[in-house]
């Protein structure tokens, strides 16, 4: 098999926690391994505090990881020099959740996109306006948008500007950090379709962070479920949504509101909140909220075991639990 576009191995991001005693640290990401293939869309789901945004940022080295390896197009990213990293960033881009907070209100749209082109030395000064216009059209905006400022656009249009800025430097990989969560339902579909079209047209790979499981299911080839900085389960969208093997995955699926009353089923409802990452539970980190926990869960950190080429689960009871969802 060819080497994946992005390969993350045993990545850890620990932050020092002040005032919590000696050696205390917040283990935001604690040993995550995942891959994203060329042209593949991988979803990353989990509750707030699961470490999904930190993981994404560590992959792009917007945060320096504490441990582990990130290989992108065969190059180790974690040890790149600042100059090499800058060059690499034209290949790896990011789209943020809040399009307004991530666009400079004092710059015109043309300047925002032009800055990205300038920083990465793409095109000459003369042909940049042409390129900027082309990119704006690609994301469904009019060329004339270049002269206007972020506040003149609606939320959905601003997200298109954010996407245009990311695309301007011809990346192969985009980290999409909840790009549709702040948008209204009717606009959300426009942006999802745009991402889908761009993916097809440009052969982009995406790591899509989200919490709306139906959006994730629709858009992603594979899905990674994160809890307290660790991978609980990963597999193709179909494997995870039809035949989840980890109680946490099933609980997440059950928590999503269901429109069709005939599709309601018995739910696994979670009690309480995520435990503190400063002092995570021993053994399986999910056991304190798990309805199926047994005493062994406290003493043993479950390995990520493979159930198919794509499907792996970190639960010692994964063989015996019947979590399958009836279609």
């Amino acid at each position, binding site marked *: 098999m060819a080497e994946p576009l992005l390969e993350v191995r045993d990545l850890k991001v620990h932050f020092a926690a002040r005032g919590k005693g000696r050696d205390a640290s917040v283990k935001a990401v604690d040993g995550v391994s995942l891959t994203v293939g060329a042209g593949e869309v991988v979803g990353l789901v989990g*509750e*707030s505090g699961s470490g999904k945004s930190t993981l994404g940022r560590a992959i792009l080295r917007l945060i320096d990881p504490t441990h582990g390896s990130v290989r992108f197009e065969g190059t180790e990213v974690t040890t790149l020099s600042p100059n090499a990293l800058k060059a690499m960033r034209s290949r790896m881009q990011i789209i943020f959740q809040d399009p307004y907070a991530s666009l400079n209100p004092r710059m015109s749209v043309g300047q925002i996109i032009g800055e990205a082109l300038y920083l990465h030395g793409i095109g000459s000064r003369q042909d940049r306006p042409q390129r900027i216009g082309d990119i704006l059209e690609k994301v469904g905006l009019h060329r004339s948008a270049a002269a206007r400022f972020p506040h003149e656009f*609606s*939320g*959905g*249009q601003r997200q298109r500007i954010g996407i245009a800025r990311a695309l301007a430097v011809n990346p192969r990989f985009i980290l999409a950090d909840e790009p549709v969560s702040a948008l*209204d*339902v*009717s*606009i*959300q*579909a*426009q942006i*999802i*379709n745009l991402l*889908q079209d761009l993916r097809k047209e440009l052969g982009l790979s995406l790591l899509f962070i989200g*919490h709306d*499981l*139906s*959006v994730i*299911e*629709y*858009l992603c080839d594979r899905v990674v479920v994160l809890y307290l900085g660790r991978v609980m389960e990963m597999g193709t*969208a*179909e494997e995870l*949504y*039809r035949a989840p093997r980890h109680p946490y995955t099933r*609980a*997440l699926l*059950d*928590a*999503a*509101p*269901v*429109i*069709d*009353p005939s599709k309601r089923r018995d*739910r696994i*409802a*979670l*009690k309480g*909140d*995520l435990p503190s990452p400063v002092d995570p539970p021993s053994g399986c980190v999910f056991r304190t909220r798990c309805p199926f926990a047994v005493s062994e869960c406290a003493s043993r950190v479950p390995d990520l075991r493979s159930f198919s080429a794509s499907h792996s689960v970190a639960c010692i009871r994964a063989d015996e639990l019947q979590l399958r969802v009836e279609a």
Partner: protein
Amino acid sequence: MTDPLLDIRHLTTEFQTESGTVRALKGVDLTVESGQTVALVGESGSGKSVTSLSVMRLLARSGASINGEIRFRRRDGVVIDLAGESEAGMRRVRGNEISMIFQEPMTSLNPTVKVGAQIAEAARLHLKVDRREAQRRAIDMLALVEIPDPELRAEIYPHQLSGGMRQRVMIAMALICRPALLIADEPTTALDVTVQLQILSLIRRLQKEIGMGVLFITHNLGVVAELADRVAVMYAGRVVEQAETSEIFKRPSHPYTRGLLSSMPVIDYEARERGQLPRLREIPGSVPDPAVPPPGCAFEPRCSWRLEACRAEVPPLFDVGGTHRSRCLRWSDLDG
């Protein structure tokens, strides 16, 4: 027949802005019965929050002018019009007869006051009980909203609680006077789905226990399906469709409602295997600028069913059957 708990008639709310008068609500009609949950659905700018703030009369400082009737039946059976009620009268209603919870609990809680004392405040004000009794009731409320160790939690500050726990505290505060009506403005939007499910079942349970009416504002149709008895869909300051919940999902009779429903992703794995992922149905364009509303139906510029007649005047509410109403000239053509 008794009067409805809340009966909003022809409510218009206007704001004076630099660019002239903006009409946020253009004649809203809505009723909520005791024990009933009515969902008010719409996108940003549709006027759903302005509706709730108008009912609570919390728009005075923004210079809004409210016209129309907001008839509310008090616990003593007397029907009053909140639109014309004095500020002193409103103070007796708010937090007592009608309570409200908001999206972001942290901004609605006082960071410098202990949780128990904040909950007790409403009891001291409206129920005229002494400090000790109010504190006892506050602890009871914390237990009622399923906060573990209520005596201990009453002594801590809001920042020491998680988002879900803060929303529970807000609910405890809102319900301590056993209101007849709870207005919930996107109370679960900022929460994780797992915690959202907990809060929705809590609201459902407490509603039964207290017998209150709930006006639940949301943009999430899944939440509507889980919680509401009735749905009113708002667009650009008007209710464009309303019906029983099951009816609105079975037979959406306004193009906007249909658009909202069909823009939600549904997956077909067989199609994906063949590499033919169906495109989501989009609603093109975006909501109209409230300062320059379209002449007729406000949804007409985005509507694939539009006719010349749609631009002539605002469509009236058509009777679709039962209590189902739609503000679309073509409601009967939409099927098929």
